[in-house]
């Protein structure tokens, strides 16, 4: 039986370099366009700290400034606590609306192993029972380790495990991507 999941990007043969990085601002616009048809009366946006929270902040004016929204910091739900301890820079999660019954658009910047999303979903359920959760990310870099995948991604961008892709912000709030190569 073939257990590989076809929609999961496989390891690329020629991994991209910093020079070939896509423009994060264009990706952001594409993400917003993909999300627009999903907005209903019961939609709420939840961004995962920190990149996802930045995205939510800028998505709100485009999708509806009055949408209920919040931020999750998943430090208390991570599965690597036993080996890595508590993240030093944890922030309070802020979910100032009733999760119960809302269709949650869960937003993150880069999708990788799926472990952060697992933690985020566990935390969300401690606030209430959502009607549904849809995962939307700016970039799906491949490499998931759990049966979790984004339903919406502005870009499929397969990377190898020694590469680290990060969303960052210029001082004026514009997004850009940074690719780091781990030194062996």
């Amino acid at each position, binding site marked *: 039986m073939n257990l590989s999941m076809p929609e999961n990007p496989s390891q690329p043969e020629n991994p991209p370099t910093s020079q070939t990085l896509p423009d994060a601002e264009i990706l952001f616009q594409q993400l917003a366009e993909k999300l627009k048809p999903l907005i209903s009366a019961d939609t709420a946006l939840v961004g995962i700290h920190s990149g996802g929270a930045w995205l939510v902040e800028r998505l709100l004016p485009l999708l509806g400034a009055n949408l209920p929204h919040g931020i999750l*910091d998943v430090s208390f739900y991570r599965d690597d606590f036993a080996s890595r*301890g*508590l993240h030093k820079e*944890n*922030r309070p999660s802020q979910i100032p609306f009733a999760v119960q019954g809302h269709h949650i658009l869960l937003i993150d910047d880069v999708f990788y192993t799926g472990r952060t999303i697992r933690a985020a979903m*566990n*935390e969300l359920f*401690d606030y209430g029972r959502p009607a549904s959760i849809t995962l939307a990310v700016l970039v799906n870099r491949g490499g998931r380790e759990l049966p979790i995948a984004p339903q919406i991604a502005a870009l499929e961008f397969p990377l190898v495990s020694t590469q680290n892709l990060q969303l960052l912000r210029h001082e004026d709030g514009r997004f850009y991507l940074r690719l780091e190569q781990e030194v062996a």
Partner: protein
Amino acid sequence: MNNPQLNQDGQLKHLLSIEGLPKAILKQILDTAESFVGVAEREVKKVPLLRGKTVCNIFFENSTRTRTTFEIAAKRLSADVLNLNVGTSSQAKGESILDTVNNLIAMHADMFVVRHSQSGAAHFIAQHVAPHIHVINAGDGRHSHPTQGLLDVFTIRRYKPDMHNLRVALVGDVLHSRVARSEIHALTTLGVPEIRVIAPKTLLPVQVEKLGVQVYHDMHEGLKGVDVVMMLRLQNERMNGALLPSAQEYFKTYGLTQEKLALAHPDAIVMHPGPMNRGVEIDSAVADGSQSVILPQVTYGIAVRMAVMAILAGSTI
């Protein structure tokens, strides 16, 4: 210098006293506590960080409030909690502290919260346990009560975030307080420029001004313009000695009333570690008044204790 509270990577391993905590760790505890405050306001007031761990409250001396808040904190972290009032059990039969602790370790306890009437008890246990065991001092004699000190500082920071611009007054029995000294230390570390102590000479340690505080014996003078009034608990047993004339006399001179509080900054907050002696160190009208943050202190105490336990449990061996 070898700091028994830190591991070799500089992470917090035991919490024994506020003295000796680097500023970065002090801030880490307060910032983490900030994240835990919200947990208590949710539908499910628990996070899974200490799932599968066992926290043991060993109280060689009674303190219902401290034990309860530690118990709630551990349970909100999903730990299993064991409460031992040792005064009434094995110790009475002559078992040594270490034998008590080692028996609990044999039952796979992971963390000890220790209260003892003798200074240094938690410190002693910390020195003798295996590296994967964590110890929290929940009060040892007159020496230290670090989580109380931390929750007081946390409360001040929540209401008065600009700590570089604060006047804080500690009023009352500084001599016998196990928190006053560590609070002065923590507030200084976090940049509070002016700390005053207000007390009769008999309730002040000798050379208290060496801690960097201004000393007042007149409460009216001392309260002028302060942003935070921290009342210290007056232990009734002190009344019996030669230190103080009477409770009524003390209230007249050092009890906090609305009239005296009016001398402080109009936005000043009033704190008290509890349990309060109403009508001795604090008037009921003040304790229940709009400037009192005495009950929020209790609430924040749980978040602070959760933060300490989470940080300790996450430190590597």
